[in-house]
């Protein structure tokens, strides 16, 4: 007979274990510790908060404030579970206005680290506590300046499994930075300082809300922001929304607060984006910092242990209110700042742009006709100027280029066999029998319709071009051997704190591609670019890769792919672009020379086929 499994008796878990389990929910990583501790500091009325981390907080975190401190008895209680000074009864849970309230933060942090607390209340009689593995090791009375200092060493030392899941030092530091950025935005009247590995990363002095935005994101951003402040139906919405210059791919910098608490809300994000309407290009998002203030009973903050998500009582109503308020703010903007940039090929637009900035001045008083917006055709016939990976056009002859493309398309078709490519005729053939041959048809300046041997294909012109450019860029990138064209004038890279950390994470990949740089005191100087790159402003490309990396939350395996995708998306012709026969034909020829002509780099379909069989069925023609 087989052994029966030994049945273990059910029993209550020891308190320390409960804390360790619970810690996983609230304390995911060093940044969560920083968040809980800083929230406590703010609730204690601090006017300055100093944060020191080592190894991104994995080895050491210290948060020091000048808040009200705790009396010795309170201090002892604070490190026990569900001890909080902020809630006395269940009823009060409905009206929580302080940041931390669940009363588990200190206890759970203490359960998974070597913990040290030193606090001095106004009376001057303070307490110093040492805790390891959730147990009080030692305590001593202390005196000094009012305030609290908490040190957390070796986070998760007692739960190695969790420790293993932490990311690199830079990754963790980035999360700390993001956390403090949110806190800093919500509390501009408080001074914040962050020191990492003995180096001060920032020191934000107490300031107005707007100045704080400048401190956090760089002052250059302020000129691209529109302030908003509206109160509708008891909901106050204030903050700043960005103009076109702040648009970034993916969910760049979008900061939302409810009653001072940083939260994530797809609903509100969506409402903001909806307010931009068509001025917002696909897959891009604007910068915003938005503070919502309302009766605390209208939001439920106790949904998520880390209090990052909230629920609203009337979600549809909220969506409409936010959208209206943002629309209002945007309507205050000068029109030019909302419309997309003019193409550089347009000399008038260029002249106007330069005229605005410190560019060339116009020699003429331009005639007072407003420039009509017209995108230039960055099509396959003419190589786009800002596409860096194309071999330079010889003599700039568009026609030559076209022939080259066709030649390569034919070569590719021969290689892959004709099956992959529907019967699309080439330019030469088209020229020979222009009459009598069915042409291509452009539908709503968005889709190209073409006859094939077995029916009809419909191609989305934008994604088709995107796919072509993507593969071309990727090929160019993969063939890079890391040789680097040295720059005569090293170019400084202006990166925000967060971007710099991402940049450092990707440094090796960038170097492999042939970027070379010098770093000095946190500044990055670009000294060389991949020899393959035809551009004197590689900063934009680097920024795109960083954005892409942030969107994919670090999952992107190859910076090259991000680079290629972002280049392709930018340079591809858009829907609404009229195309002539030759342009459409070239586009199709090149598309079907691609390795994967049927999906775009983001996975959207490129081609829809409608077979003769299907048509026959629909017309009851058997």
């Amino acid at each position, binding site marked *: 007979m087989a052994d029966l499994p030994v049945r273990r008796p059910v029993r209550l878990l020891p308190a320390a274990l409960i804390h360790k389990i619970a810690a996983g929910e609230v304390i995911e990583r060093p940044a969560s510790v920083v968040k809980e501790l800083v929230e406590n500091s703010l609730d204690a009325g601090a006017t300055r908060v100093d944060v020191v981390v080592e190894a991104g907080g994995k080895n050491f975190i210290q948060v020091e404030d000048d808040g009200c401190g705790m009396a010795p008895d309170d201090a002892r209680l604070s490190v026990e579970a569900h001890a909080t000074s902020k809630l006395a009864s269940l009823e009060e849970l409905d009206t929580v206005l302080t940041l931390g309230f669940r009363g588990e933060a200190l206890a759970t942090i203490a359960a998974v680290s070597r913990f040290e607390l030193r606090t001095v209340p106004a009376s001057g009689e303070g307490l110093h506590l040492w805790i390891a593995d959730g147990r009080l090791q030692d305590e001593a009375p202390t005196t000094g300046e009012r305030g609290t200092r908490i040190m957390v060493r070796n986070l998760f030392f007692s739960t190695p499994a969790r420790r293993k899941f932490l990311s690199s030092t830079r990754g963790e530091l980035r999360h700390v930075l993001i956390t403090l950025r949110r806190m800093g935005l919500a509390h501009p009247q408080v001074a914040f300082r962050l020191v990492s590995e003995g180096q001060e990363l920032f020191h934000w002095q107490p300031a107005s809300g707007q100045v704080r935005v400048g401190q956090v994101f760089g002052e250059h951003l302020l000129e691209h922001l529109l302030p908003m402040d509206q109160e509708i139906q008891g909901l106050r919405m204030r903050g700043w929304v960005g103009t076109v210059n702040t648009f970034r791919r993916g969910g760049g910098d979008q900061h939302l607060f409810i009653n001072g608490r940083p939260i994530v809300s797809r609903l509100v994000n969506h409402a903001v984006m909806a307010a931009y309407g068509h001025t917002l290009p696909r897959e891009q998002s604007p910068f915003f910092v938005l503070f919502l203030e309302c009766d605390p009973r209208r939001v439920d903050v106790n949904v998520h242990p880390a209090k990052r998500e909230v629920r609203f009582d009337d979600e549809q109503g909220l969506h409409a209110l936010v959208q209206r308020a943002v629309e209002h703010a945007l309507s205050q903007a000068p029109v030019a700042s909302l419309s997309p940039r*003019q193409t*550089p*090929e*347009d*000399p*008038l*637009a*260029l*002249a106007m742009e*330069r005229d605005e900035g*410190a*560019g*060339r*001045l*116009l*020699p*003429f*008083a*331009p*005639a007072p*006709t407003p*420039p*009509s*917006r*017209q995108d*230039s055709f960055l099509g396959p016939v003419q190589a786009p100027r800002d596409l860096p*990976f194309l*071999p*330079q056009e010889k003599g700039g002859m568009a026609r030559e280029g076209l022939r080259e493309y066709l030649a390569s398309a034919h070569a590719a078709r021969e290689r892959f066999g004709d099956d992959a490519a529907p019967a699309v005729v080439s330019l030469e053939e088209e020229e020979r029998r222009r009459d009598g041959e069915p042409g291509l048809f452009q539908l709503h300046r968005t889709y190209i319709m073409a006859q094939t041997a077995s029916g009809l294909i419909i191609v989305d012109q934008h994604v088709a071009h995107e796919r072509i450019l993507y593969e071309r860029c990727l090929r*160019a990138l993969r*063939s890079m*051997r*890391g*040789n*680097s*064209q*040295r*720059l*005569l*004038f090293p170019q400084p890279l202006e990166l925000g704190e967060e971007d710099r950390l991402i940049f450092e994470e990707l440094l090796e990949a960038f170097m492999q591609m*042939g970027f*070379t740089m010098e770093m000095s005191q946190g500044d990055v100087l670009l000294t*060389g670019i991949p*020899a*393959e790159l035809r*551009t*004197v*402003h590689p900063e*934009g490309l680097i920024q795109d890769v960083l954005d892409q990396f942030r969107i994919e939350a670090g999952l992107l395996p190859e910076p090259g792919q991000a680079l290629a995708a972002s280049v392709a998306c930018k340079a591809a012709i858009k829907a609404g672009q009229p195309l002539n026969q030759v342009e459409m034909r070239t586009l199709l020829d090149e598309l079907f020379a691609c390795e994967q002509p049927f999906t775009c780099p983001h996975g959207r379909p490129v081609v829809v086929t409608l077979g003769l069989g299907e048509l026959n069925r629909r017309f009851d023609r058997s």
Partner: protein
Amino acid sequence: MRFTVPQKEFLAHLQKLIAVVPSKTTHPMLNNILFHVDANEARLTATDLEVSFTTRMKIEGGEGEDLAIQAKRLMEIVRELDERPITLQTDRNGKQVEIQSGQALFHIPCESAETFPSLPGIEVSAELEMPLERLRSHIERLGFAVSNDDLRPVLTGILFEFREEALNLVATDGHRLVRIQDHQLAGQTRLGSVIIPVKALNLVSRGLEGSEAPVKLSLAQNHLVFSQGGAQIYTTLISGRYPAYEGVIPQQNENIMQGTRSILHRAVKQAANCANNVTHQINFGVSEGKLVITAEDNEFGSRARNEVDVDYAGETLDIAFNATYLDQMLRHLDTEQVVFKFGTAERAALLLPEINREAEDLLMLLMPVRLMR
């Protein structure tokens, strides 16, 4: 408006002006040429708002209002006509212009001159004359090194630095740099430092006539006028700070290689045929008395190797360059012998003529391609 002009003369003017007309514009008026006629002379102007070009053309029987006519269409019509006098005349309501040559008659639309951008009155703050031929030769040797990237506007022009010791002219795209020091124009410091768009300079080089007559440069606050005979080229100056180029010109390059320009040039072009057609990278291996030029394209599977005799006594050195850049530089030197000055494989190399032209110094600089080890 009405005038008569010989076909050849008319075409020559139109062909010069068309260089200014922007190829793509959202401001349709810029596709036109503005005509202003007096009895014996017509003034033709084209502009892209940054650069404008005015020429004076001898005519007969000129009279009437100013008019703007589509440049390209007009030029194409005139180009195909016989060499006999052409008469231009507006129709009664002024909406069309009639072009007549012998039995041939064309009508094309025209517009009143009112919406054509008007030239500003300028206050000249400094003036200078220089031989056109000398300026032209400078522009030809500098123009290729100018950047065509609009995102760094200052590099899309040529720097004119009027100094006590010389006029320094500099062009760079951040990868290579050309500097000409013209000692004949030393001491013209009133003009200060200006960055002139290369488009305007190319127009000066190709659009102005003759080689003997001097061209006058008149500087006003934000623009510069080149005038010669009846022609005038206005250009806006590029504002912004030109990069501190002097600091990047190496002073310590002591590995000096001298060779015959035509042989080196051919060897570079030959090797470039087997170089990767995106990077155009070719490698120089220099050792005593010998330069080995190699190139390869792993993707395509091509390789080149060539040896050239040179005068060289410096350190053995391997350094790589973009062949396209080298080709252009060697093409724009005109001495029999040229001198390369190398530092290390990572640092800028200098390329100089063995003997400079009278009263000038020419220097070319090229940043190498750093090789992955």
